[in-house]
């Protein structure tokens, strides 16, 4: 099953670029051009990953991330923040501590973004649940026997 990526950004050029790149890479691609639409789309479509631009027409990415992280249906969807404006270390810390899984600056190399997408999805898909259900349970059961 194809993994679905939601891109929230109002810049039509970058949306087109990422649509082409991600579809070529075998992902399903959906987009929203503002924060409210992005949150609505995330709730409705349950994407596997969200790429979130930080500077949006109606709000900013920090607020969108906070809302998604407190939403029962969306709180576990990985988020990569993308920004050309909020570039300081404190911005990065705020984004990551606010629940983002990664924080990338524009301009970016699409190859690096793809590598970061793969890394985040790999952990969620393979290590997260696999670690929990297999290794974690086995370790706890082993401890119990000891």
């Amino acid at each position: 099953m194809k993994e679905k990526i939601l891109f929230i950004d109002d810049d039509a050029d970058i949306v087109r670029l990422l649509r082409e790149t991600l579809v070529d890479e075998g992902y399903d691609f959906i987009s929203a051009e503002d924060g409210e639409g992005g949150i609505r789309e995330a709730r409705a479509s349950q994407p596997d990953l969200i790429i979130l631009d930080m500077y949006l027409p109606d709000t900013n990415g920090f607020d969108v991330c906070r809302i998604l992280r407190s939403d029962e249906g969306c709180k576990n969807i990985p988020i990569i923040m993308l920004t050309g404006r909020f570039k300081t270390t404190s911005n990065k810390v705020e984004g990551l501590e606010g629940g983002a899984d990664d924080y990338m600056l524009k301009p970016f190399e699409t190859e690096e973004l793809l590598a970061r997408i793969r890394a985040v999805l790999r952990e969620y898909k393979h290590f997260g649940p696999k670690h929990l259900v297999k290794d974690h349970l086995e370790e706890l059961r082993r401890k119990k026997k000891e």
Partner: protein
Amino acid sequence: MKKKILVVDDDPNAVEFLKEGLTAENFRVISAKNGDEGIKKVREERPDCVILEAVLPGLSGFEVCSILKQDKLTHFVPIIMVSGKATETEDKLNGFEAGSDDYLTKPIEVKELVARIKAVFRRYELSEDGEEVVEIEGISLDVTRAVVRVKGRVVSLRPKEFDLLYLLMKKAGRVLSRSYLLESIWGYEYFGATRTVDVHIRRLRVKLGQEAARKIKTVEGKGYMFLGRE
């Protein structure tokens, strides 16, 4: 308990800088000055995260990362690779290709590194002491005792049903596809149809009872979701 971070770097100044910074942020820091020592320390000391310099004497950081990520005993240890100012996109791609979970370019800001370490921990869902009891609205699952209770009543589950409930509850609020559940619980080597999941979900619902069973929602065409969170 403090999380243990292993710093693998041959530059003593870089190690000292990270030791000071991370210790101040409440981590316990150990170090290794080359790849061989780093691999040995990961196997013996089981750190919670590795900060791995890409350029090392002997084995490169990329090789170390690849070895650790292919080893069944160490593949789940998060690795954040770092390298100097001259880092090219290709270096980062090599790092991610080797299995690195993140990649930072020096000079490193400790606060950003800490935020990225925590983000990686969240992704791996490593709770502070290993979560042993999950409880959501009257349903409790005690991993160490392998006991499930619904409003105090003990429910006897078979191991796969137990693991299925555990994963659904841990990921409460998220739709989990059948193939995702199958792969996570039965493993990659399991070639059973995704219908196996439906059969186990049905048994699980029956055993949990009508009210608790409603917490496991079927999402048409997608999979299953456990409703609510404690």
